[in-house]
């Protein structure tokens, strides 16, 4: 349809088409403040998802490859359980008789040494007298509990000794210091002595360690191998940390240690131990009773060197929270009969008009705008990525205590609205404003925690971690509502290692 042209239209169009009115400064500030709170848009979300998936995949692949590599290395080094070392004729005269009390430590003290997970490498060798010996080692099956070893009578006591490799032609049963997290030499020596007391090295050679060397070396005892009486010279090659008093071994056999839980990773001293794991955790904020707990299922990796721990992870977290809405409404005032129309009919008999009134029921609401609010419980999904470094303060048996610090990154994924609708009754709802929940955004924290963990078996452990978290990126709404950015939390975890 052709538009009609009118001078008034042209006049006003030409006059006002480029009219600009400068907004007030207050409206500008209000707009900028509110705009900063709006969620970002664009393809970055997808990009961020791809990056996170890539990182998670890389972590998993790295963990699996490292586990396979280390596990394979562990099994390769433990293949030489059978005797391989042969002594030469000079050694044969140096090994004491099995029942001869030699090089046994006085069992004056038995101290439990917190050892990481030492591997006892003492090869039981069946020496061939006709072949020169090259090394002299005895294997003992490793024990799961690093602090438990076998005494000569078969009971568990302290760490078994590790027989040191010596020069060819020499048989030296020296005790290597156990792998310990501390470097106190006196403690090491003491522990070494006790460990050596429980090690019995069997050698094929009938030679025994000379008396003058009994204070310095520990031949140990080897099963089923005859030993000569003490008196023959055996050069001492022990290091300063491996000297032991000369006491005979209690028995001639090395009972096989109980190994219910063979180790998966070889905790060799000075090497980094990588432990990937699955974890379920439950986080509760302590100073806010209304805050719902956060359930997290995650995949992580822990690097440990000595007592120092570094852990990272990525997990899917879920929590519930309340999403608020603000309602603008008018109050209901009542009903009345509204006059729609009147018709008149002429009454010829009475010479007047007869009106007919047409009415309808009409509701009336107040014009005053009022505000109301209501909340609906929603479920929020987050991607949680903690990064922590820690120090293992105390370890004893299955229990360990460590302190950790680091950061926790929570990326908002989506929210699912729960059931529940606003019941307005007879009020007239003008508009419902969505008051954005603080949970519908990324929230990052600095954290510090104290972790008390208990290993149920070699794979499963539980831990309780009281935490303090510092909120790194509060919004303006957060900073007005929360009293402190530093909040206490309590976290319980179930960890499954693989």
């Amino acid at each position, binding site marked *: 349809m052709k538009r009609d042209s009118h001078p008034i239209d042209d006049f006003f*169009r030409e006059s006002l088409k480029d009219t600009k009115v400068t907004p007030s400064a207050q409206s500008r500030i209000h707009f900028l403040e509110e705009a900063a709170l709006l969620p970002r848009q*664009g393809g970055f979300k997808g990009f961020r998802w791809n990056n996170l998936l890539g990182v998670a995949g890389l972590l998993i692949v790295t963990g699996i490859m490292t586990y396979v590599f280390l596990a394979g290395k562990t099994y390769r080094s433990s293949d030489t359980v059978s005797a391989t070392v042969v002594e030469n004729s000079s050694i044969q005269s140096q090994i004491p008789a099995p029942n001869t009390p030699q090089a046994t430590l006085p069992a004056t003290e038995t101290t439990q040494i917190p050892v990481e997970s030492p591997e006892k490498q003492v090869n039981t060798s069946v020496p061939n007298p006709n072949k020169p010996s090259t090394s002299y080692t005895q294997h003992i099956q490793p024990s799961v509990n690093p602090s438990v070893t076998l005494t000569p009578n078969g009971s568990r006591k302290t760490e078994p000794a590790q027989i040191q490799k010596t020069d060819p032609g020499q048989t030296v049963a020296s005790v290597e210091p156990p792998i310990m997290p501390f470097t106190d030499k006196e403690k090491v020596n003491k522990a070494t002595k006790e460990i050596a007391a429980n090690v019995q090295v069997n050698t094929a050679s009938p030679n025994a360690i000379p008396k003058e060397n009994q204070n310095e070396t520990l031949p140990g005892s080897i099963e089923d191998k005859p030993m000569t009486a003490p008196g023959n010279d055996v050069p001492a090659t022990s290091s300063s940390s491996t000297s032991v008093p000369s006491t005979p071994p209690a028995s001639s056999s090395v009972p096989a240690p109980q190994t219910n839980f063979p180790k998966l990773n070889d905790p060799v001293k000075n090497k980094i131990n990588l432990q990937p794991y699955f974890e379920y955790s439950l986080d509760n904020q302590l100073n806010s009773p209304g805050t719902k707990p956060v359930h997290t299922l995650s995949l992580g990796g822990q690097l440990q060197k000595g007592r120092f721990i570094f852990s990272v992870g990525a997990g899917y977290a879920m929590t519930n929270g309340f999403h608020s809405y603000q309602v603008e409404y008018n109050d209901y005032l009542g009903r009345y009969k509204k006059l729609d129309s009147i018709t008149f009919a002429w009454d010829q008999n009475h010479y007047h008009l007869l009106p007919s009134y047409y009415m309808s029921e009409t509701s009336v609401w107040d014009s005053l705008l009022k505000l109301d609010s209501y909340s609906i419980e929603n479920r929020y999904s987050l991607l949680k990525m903690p990064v922590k470094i820690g120090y293992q303060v105390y370890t004893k048996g299955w229990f360990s205590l460590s302190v950790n610090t680091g950061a926790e990154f929570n990326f908002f994924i989506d929210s699912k609205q729960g059931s529940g609708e606003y019941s307005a009754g007879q009020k007239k709802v*003008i508009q419902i404003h969505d008051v954005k929940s603080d949970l519908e955004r990324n929230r990052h924290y600095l954290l510090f925690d104290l972790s008390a963990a208990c290993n149920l078996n070699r794979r499963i452990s539980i831990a309780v971690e009281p935490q303090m978290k510092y909120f790194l990126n509060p919004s303006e709404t957060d900073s007005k509502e929360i009293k402190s950015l530093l909040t206490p939390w309590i976290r319980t975890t179930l960890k499954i290692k693989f």
Partner: protein
Amino acid sequence: MLSESALIKGVQKRNREALEELHDRYAPALLGLCMRYCGNRTDAEDVLHDAFIKILMSVGKFMERPNSSFEGWLKRIAVNTALNFLRDKTKMSRVVELEPVQEWIPEEEEETSLAAFAGRLEKDEIMAMICELPHGYRTVFNMYVFEDFSHKEIAEALNCSENTSKTQLFKARAMLQKKITEVLSKQSVSK
């Protein structure tokens, strides 16, 4: 000064500088548009604020239409926001217009050339004339004259008949003509 594409990307990322430039560049024109619809500055600034929030929330959708004019898209959002505001305001109002809706279109009066008076009136005065119109006349006049809506589109937007739209436009023109005459006569008297 950012280019349009850089400005849009910055707005999407909620970059502070981009938001400031968006407001500084387009807010004056949009506020003028909102004032023509709302009739007063207070309501116009509220509508402008709501319009900008809608713009920020839906700027991604504009990116999907590369051939569209960004300023034109902004103005359409502002117009729709103003219409929604006026619709809600009408619901809240207890005032019922008693003037019946005419179903016939009166004959056009003799057109008066206003070109001679264009330079004699300030923009503020002209804007005030628009703002003084009843909101129904003002809405139809704005939609028809400034946004180039057809009567059919106006009727769909305002939920009325085409004849009602035409009648309202006719009356708006008549009132504006009368106001211009009054203002000009006052000016000539004051001189």
